[in-house]
């Protein structure tokens, strides 16, 4: 692997004495799809929240493109090139689909509060640029037809892709996807699968949390297995799947369902 784009080193956090994430390290390179799997409660989303700065880690560092961003507040991490989607949909339900993606463009917009208040021509030029970019992104995720629909009226699978479009609007170098295919049917999952592969190919490092093992095994370059907040195994999908420790963790009472799916 060349120089890693995202370098998470020895990161950990405890809630009330429970080590939700403990001593986790991983590196992701540009164009790579890196998946994090593990039984429910293994600390996958907590790990995401540590990497994106929602939680402040009690130990460890996060480096992006060589710069230490461990102490950077979450809204500024986007500026350094980090965008994410959410496990439980975080959609702006009262806005249209295209407006949702336009919000994602916020960082590239060059207006000020005063210009916005006065309605200067520059604001409307900016709106047109932002809108064109948002429409192109909707096209890319296959939602161009639904651009003007209120987000609240979109089906679940479309909302999952809308979140990806909104995250891409920030022109990220690293894209963190928290269960993008959860609750999607086979056709929707296939679409998301292709989308993730295309995004990675365009030069974005993708970090993926996903329960759909078929999807993970198919598109991941490397997989990290978490169990009870600690790394259990890391490596290419095939090696991880055959790792006895991983099988044991999954066949333990909590994870048997996922193991069935992994081998099914």
């Amino acid at each position, binding site marked *: 692997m060349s120089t890693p784009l995202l370098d998470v080193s020895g990161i950990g956090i405890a809630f009330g004495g429970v080590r939700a994430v403990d001593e986790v390290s991983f590196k992701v390179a540009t164009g790579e799809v890196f998946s994090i799997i593990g039984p429910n409660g293994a600390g996958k989303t907590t790990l995401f929240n540590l990497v*994106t700065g*929602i939680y402040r880690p009690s130990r460890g560092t996060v480096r992006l493109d060589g710069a230490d961003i461990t102490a950077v507040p*979450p*809204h*500024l991490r*986007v*500026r350094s090139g980090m*965008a*994410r989607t*959410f496990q439980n949909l*975080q*959609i*702006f*339900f*009262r*806005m249209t689909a295209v*407006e949702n993606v*336009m*919000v*994602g463009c*916020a*960082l590239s*917009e060059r*207006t000020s*509060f005063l*210009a*916005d*208040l*006065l*309605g200067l021509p520059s*604001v*409307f030029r*900016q*709106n047109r640029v*932002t809108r064109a970019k948002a429409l192109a992104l909707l096209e890319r995720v296959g939602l161009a037809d639904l651009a003007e629909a209120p987000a609240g009226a979109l089906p679940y699978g479309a909302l999952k892709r809308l979140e990806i479009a*909104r*995250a891409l*609007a*920030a022109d990220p170098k690293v894209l963190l996807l928290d269960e993008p295919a959860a609750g999607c049917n086979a056709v929707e999952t296939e679409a998301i699968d292709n989308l993730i592969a295309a995004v990675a190919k365009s030069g974005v490092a993708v970090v993926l949390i996903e329960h759909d093992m078929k999807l993970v095994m198919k598109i991941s370059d490397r997989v990290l297995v978490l169990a009870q907040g600690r790394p259990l195994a890391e490596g290419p999908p095939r090696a991880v799947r055959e790792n006895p420790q991983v099988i044991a963790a999954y066949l333990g009472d909590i994870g048997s369902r996922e193991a069935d799916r992994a081998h099914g």
Partner: protein
Amino acid sequence: MKAILRSRLTPLLALALVMALVPMIAPTSFHLRVAALVWIFSLAALGLTILMGYAGQVSLGHAGFLGIGAYAVAIGPARLGLDPLLCLLLGAVLSGLVAWLVGRPILRLKGYYLAIATLGFGVIVALILHSETELTGGPDGMSVARVTLFGWRVTGALNWYWVSAGALLVGALLALNIAASPTGRALRALHDSEVAATGAGIDVSAKKLAAFVLAAVYAAVAGGLLAAMNGLITPEAASFSHSVELVAMVIIGGLGSVFGTVLGAAFLVVLPQALTAFQEYEQAVLGLLIMVFMIFLPQGIVPSLRALIEERLP
């Protein structure tokens, strides 16, 4: 038709049309004064429309900012010999500054907790206006010097009608500008999901604070106009019931709708005048009417009617 309903400037044109028509049909200067009060309270409520309707942050102490603006116009000329128009501007700046100082700590709070904190702020302003008798005249209030606009003494109901109408038009234009801008998108986004807005790189606290300060400036300008038009101001202007009325105007008209806010203000300013025939039952009838409106137009006047019309159009 749908395009007209959705156009950004439709509410502004509708408002200007109504403003032009009212003086033609108003039978007496009393009616013109009531109309001017509608424009002034609309202006105050418009600030809340930005704060509550766009950004989803409640303020139950907004009459406090109205009071700051009103007393700036009263105290400045009377105690410091300043020009009333300058005092209107100073009041707006002071109000914005106070909002910035108060908003930084309390806008961290959400929902009910923010409501109670803003309520506390309003109570404090009312208390100061009540008790600083030397400066404010205490509960009896104080008289306000006449306003001169570039050599023109503003007197009479019709002149105040046009001044307040002009101020509201400017306020409405600015509110519509914000709605259609990146700032407006950011405010509406954080209304729905703060975590997603943060994820998009939006500084949620800074945006909330900007909306709060802007809302305070709107209220202060309205308060200054109110004081100058009435020629008299009492601490009642900053009272809790006034704060609640402002919130009610925004909700009755339709959260987030500029034209709706004006309808909401008209509802709560005009109806009490129209209901004086009910004498001691006036307040009860007003309360009943508010309940009926909210039951049949649950999203407020404008959004509910718009939904009805769009449903029936092909």
